[in-house]
């Protein structure tokens, strides 16, 4: 059975229909990569799954329960879903370490020492241990991105939503994050990743989905979608990279 299942999801801002009759199935432990033009609705999709936006129509089911039902307990659902925002959204008044321990301590009831230990370990894995006491404003772009990744991953959510998480990282770090994600996946984490880096998509994806104007145009294994796209729009989108 699918862990996550979207059917007929629609989201509009005023007249701008951003997601239109969107459907997607993600099985447990699967890594689905979303690609598509800028503005095609990838980030909005992740925000809807995390209940940060209310969908205008359609159903989003997580492990069989309809999370878009207004009767659902949004806080509990969100605490099992992690998200790394495209714009990081770190808490500027907290140090990097405090950013990463806030949810473990307050939501998951992890003792403070244990939470710090785990957070420092995670910061270590993204190469940010020496910046644990720095404020987000004093970090470089790539450092902020890694802090945001660590903050989300330290909660070991069952479903992880990752929005362009390698955009500010150098090739070395991209490799390390890739390793990290692979580890977590082998521990059973399900992932939904937005990215513009096709190489990254190819490396990690079980399924690649191509979004176009808020609809799922094409999906399948990376080899199929990235190398042999069936839709003309997908072909056009991917042409640039291969040249």
């Amino acid at each position, binding site marked *: 059975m699918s862990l996550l299942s979207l059917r007929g999801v629609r989201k509009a801002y005023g007249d701008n229909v951003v997601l239109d009759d969107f459907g997607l199935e993600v099985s447990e432990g699967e890594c689905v990569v979303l690609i598509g033009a800028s503005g095609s609705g990838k980030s909005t999709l992740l925000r809807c799954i995390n209940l940060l936006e209310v969908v205008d129509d359609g159903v989003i089911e997580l492990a069989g329960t309809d999370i878009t039902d207004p009767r659902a307990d949004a806080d*509990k659902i969100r605490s099992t879903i992690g998200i790394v925002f495209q714009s990081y959204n770190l*808490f500027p008044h907290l140090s990097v370490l405090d950013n990463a321990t*806030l*949810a473990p301590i307050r*939501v998951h009831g992890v003792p403070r020492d244990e939470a710090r230990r785990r957070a420092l370990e995670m910061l270590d894995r993204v190469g940010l241990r020496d910046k644990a006491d720095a404020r987000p404003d004093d970090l470089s772009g790539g450092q902020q991105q890694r802090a945001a990744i660590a903050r989300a991953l330290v909660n070991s959510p069952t479903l992880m939503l990752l929005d362009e998480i390698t955009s500010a990282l150098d090739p070395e770090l991209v490799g390390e994050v890739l390793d990290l994600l692979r580890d977590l996946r082998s521990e059973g984490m399900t992932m939904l990743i937005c990215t513009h880096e096709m190489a990254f998509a190819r490396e990690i994806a079980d399924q690649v989905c191509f979004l176009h104007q808020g609809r799922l145009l094409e999906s399948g294994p990376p080899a199929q979608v990235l190398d042999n796209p069936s839709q003309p729009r997908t072909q056009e989108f991917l042409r640039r990279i291969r040249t």
Partner: protein
Amino acid sequence: MTDWQPSALQLERIAYRQRRARRSTLIAVVSSVVLLVLVAIGIGSTPGWPRVRATFFDPQRAWEALPVVAEGLWLNIRVMLICAVLIVVIGMALAILRTLRGPIFFPLRVFAAAYTDVFRGLPLLLVIFLLGFGVPALRLQGVPNAAVIWGGAALVLTYSSYVAEVFRAGIESVHPSQRAAARSLGLSYRQTLRFVVLPQAVRRVMPPLLNDFVSLQKDSGLIAVLGVIDAIRAAQLETAIDFNFTPYVVAGLLFVALTIPLTRLTDYVARRQGWYGGGGGPV
């Protein structure tokens, strides 16, 4: 890296900047002193100055009035301290009610808005009269009659509406992506407010918040109309003895003396903790 020595060029730049800073301080100090001296001479040579000095700035009278006025000030301070706690709590609650989202909370928002509108709009003096004279006049059983209590209640009602608006400004100024980030981590609405929104909000509105506490400290004296003696009232009583306004000036100076350390301390802490701006950049 620690053995870095500034280059000759850099030393020259540092010296230049210091010279400029020193010169601007010098200009400022000299021009202030000159201005002050000119104003002092100007005022001192007016025909009425001796009378004004005797009426407003009589050192001996000041010294005599000091203990009485200081005693009155002690009342202001106590009333202010007790009320301040209640005001912060109620003001914060109102601000939170007003910033709730969604149609379910519409009635709460309306209530908070109405409360703010009414008590901010009503003159404090009227609220003091209504509570201080009106409530005891109802002759309720078991309700305290003391002027200070009802006067304090009036202060709390009025000031909590001001403080609510200050907090609201702070809350609304926190970018919604911060809430989104907190909720996405599983924090509840309350936790999001407590750990993410309010800490940022309160820091941003420290100056207007202090405004309100400074003026609360002074307005706490308005309960004097109910028959208790605060600093200003004490000054008035002293003035009545010999028609000399110096005690008022003493009261004023005492208030300023109370306010300045509070303000300077808050500013110092805020700046050290980086609550204001990004600190230090050249732009």
